[in-house]
């Protein structure tokens, strides 16, 4: 159980990486932009990949009526996400420590993992909803109004994951270092649960003999 608890502590602590490194990155490149424009998404706000990328993306997007990219105070997510992640790290480390001293069982580890997975899925859902709003909720007075072949207004929603061609731009959306820390951390907590289960099974067997 000690090994499992240590894995739980380390795994949940790895989520702290999200406070340092970006979670996600959206990059817009075109032959006319030899240095692509990009947004790094952190749990507490957005930053340009290069210093003035946010301003320059907003400058381009205003032609098609997209809103300016949100400042931290414009979205509740940027104040809530850090609390959620911070809370989950706190609980994870606490569960690990309690497990270490045999105060709780491995079920708590699985519980933490399932809760974190649900929160993650909700986060992705929320992120996708924001992308959808950002890419489709356009200013009716937009300077350029582009439509699909069927006459419906064109959507500029960047992909949630992967590559998509948007007008002359190639949009790439991929996780960054913060997300990899989270992924690794969650894997470790899953392993922690498994190790705890194995330990429990082994000690049960020991009792029965």
């Amino acid at each position, binding site marked *: 159980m000690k090994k499992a608890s240590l894995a739980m502590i380390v795994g949940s602590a790895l989520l702290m990486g999200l406070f340092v490194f970006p979670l996600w990155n959206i990059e817009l490149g075109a032959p006319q932009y030899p240095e692509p424009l990009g947004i790094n998404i952190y749990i507490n706000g957005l930053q340009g990949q290069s*210093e*003035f990328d946010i301003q*320059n993306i907003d*400058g381009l997007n205003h*032609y098609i009526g997209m809103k300016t990219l949100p400042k931290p105070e414009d979205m509740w997510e940027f104040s809530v996400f850090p609390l959620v992640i911070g809370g989950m790290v706190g609980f994870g480390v606490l569960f690990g420590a309690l497990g270490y001293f045999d105060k709780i069982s491995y079920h708590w580890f699985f519980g933490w993992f399932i809760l974190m997975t649900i929160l993650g899925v909700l986060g992705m859902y929320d992120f996708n909803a924001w992308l959808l709003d950002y890419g489709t909720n356009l200013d009716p007075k937009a300077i*350029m109004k582009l439509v699909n072949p069927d006459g419906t207004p064109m959507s500029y929603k960047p992909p949630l994951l992967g590559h998509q061609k948007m007008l002359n731009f190639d949009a790439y959306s991929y996780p960054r270092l913060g997300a990899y820390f989270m992924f690794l951390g969650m894997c470790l907590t899953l392993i922690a649960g498994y190790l705890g289960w194995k330990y429990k099974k082994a000690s049960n067997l020991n009792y029965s003999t």
Partner: protein
Amino acid sequence: MALIGVAMIISSCGNGSNKSSSNGALGSSAAEKVYVAPGQQDEFYAFLSGGYSGNLTVYGLPSGRMFKEIPVFSQFPTSGYGYSEETKPMLNTSFGFVPWDDAHHPDISQTNGELDGRWIFINGNNTPRVARINLSTFETEEIIEVPNSAGNHSSSFITENTEYVVAGTRFSVPVPQKDMPINEYKGNFKGALTFISVEPEHGNMDIKFQLLMPGFNYDLSHPGRGDSHGWFFFTTYNTEEANSLMEVNSSQNDKDFIAAVNWKKIEEYVNNGGGTKMPADYAHNVYDEGTHMGTSTMKKEVLTVDPLKVPGAVFFLPTPKSPHGCDVDPTGQYIIGNGKLSADLTVHSFDKMIAAIEDEKFDGEAYGIPILKFEDVLAGTVKSGGLGPLHTEFDEKGNAYTTFFISSEVVKWKLGTWEVVDRKPTFYSVGHLMIPGGNSRKPFGKYVVAMNKITKDRYLPTGPEMEHSAQIYDISGEKMELIYDFPTHGEPHYAAGCPAELLAPKSKKIYRLDDNKHPYAVSNPSEARVERNGNEVHIYMSTIRSHFTPDNIEGVKVGDKVYFHITNHEQDFDVPHGFSIIGQNTSELLVMPGQTKTSIWEPKKVGVWPFYCTDFCSALHQEMQGYVRVSPANSDIELSWSLGE
């Protein structure tokens, strides 16, 4: 499997034949050597002086593509240089506003005798001036006028740690200037050799001292390097001191001189309180990158030095025959004096010169300055068979390349053995030539650029006047190969070049808006406003794709002096906005990202007058416009301004 085998045989055959053809005599064409494919960049920057254009142009090597014209001494409507309120002070002189000059010799700053790519200096020949251009912004940052000088020709060459940039006068004149008979020139006129110190960190220039030499013509110059660091060499002509029909009267002496000046010795003399302060009147103009503004200060005094007061500091080296170019090889050992009326080149030895000075082997004196014996300082003569040698540059392999004006050719010869290795014609009448770094201890001897005075039949004719032509020779092999012709702007006299990697990585892409300290800048469009102060109206305006803030202005009256202070709020590489308004008696402005510039408009007619962006900045550039309403002088309409109302 068999198929793959066949394919391999075919493809290897193909490769084999390709290889043999690329190694063959016709394998590398001249076109391949200068072709820089779309998306690729050149290997070298070349900075060519514009002569009578007053400016400096930037080209790529080997492509010969022109990248930019940098305004230096001339007003430049393309950017508003010399028209905007911020840059007008740069062209101030003791003669008032002089919006033109004859720009001759650029030289890139050096550290330990190697190009460091921080600044490039260039001289104004007509109204004597020296300018310093920043090589991260490619903008003129400083211009200093040179008093007591006339025809600032043997300039602007720099010492190997950029301690000094020199400004030697081509024409001797009365010092100080006075009303006197011209035919009393001989013995009365003086030639000022001015040593301008360069502050090591920011490059700011200041006249350290002026050496008042005999009244010869000081044609070109070159600093020593290596062992000869601390010396400067100037060619002279008209040692006859003739004042009329110079082509005959100043070409009588078989030998003129190269003046060797030990500037370290004079510097020491000056630092110990030597020299005479003389009243003078000259402008010192500095452009500040933070405020985006130039200021002009008039200076009132200059320190002069009589060469006779510093024994052992100045000597004359006899050199045949009206020498023009004065060039020092990368080791600093050889001083080449090209007698423009001679067929041969004269090479002096620095070591022999020092030995002759130590042994005091003098051959008389001129105005008290010792003349060394020709034979005692001569290192060798290049017997070339050409006519009219002018200028010499060097590669890193011990070869020198000399232009011959009259016989129109470049001659390659070996330092030390003085044998001619190769010669190639130029088209036509070549003046200077340039090898990147050829003016330093570390040349990059891959190309030589010859700058020709006459173009004639090289391009499609454009009336009686043609732009001048430059030619690129590949000098990587034993023999030179002419690989390209390209037209140049103005009359390039000399050029400086350096590897692209020295400048490209540090080239500025934007000015940061948060570093903009211009007193009339607006850091946010919400600060845009209009203020009246008597009959002056100050408009604080911002630009961003694709609108001005404000774009409607009312309350301006006939007779007002309207200042448009435009701040460009873009922070994106190469996105300037322009500004112009109808009836302006000046040029448009081109405002770089993060920069502020000011233009004056004095409306003379009642009406509603448009202004617009002159730089095609975006898909809606054409809509980037606004109006100023101009009311009669006695109108009581209040100042007002708006955007989007």
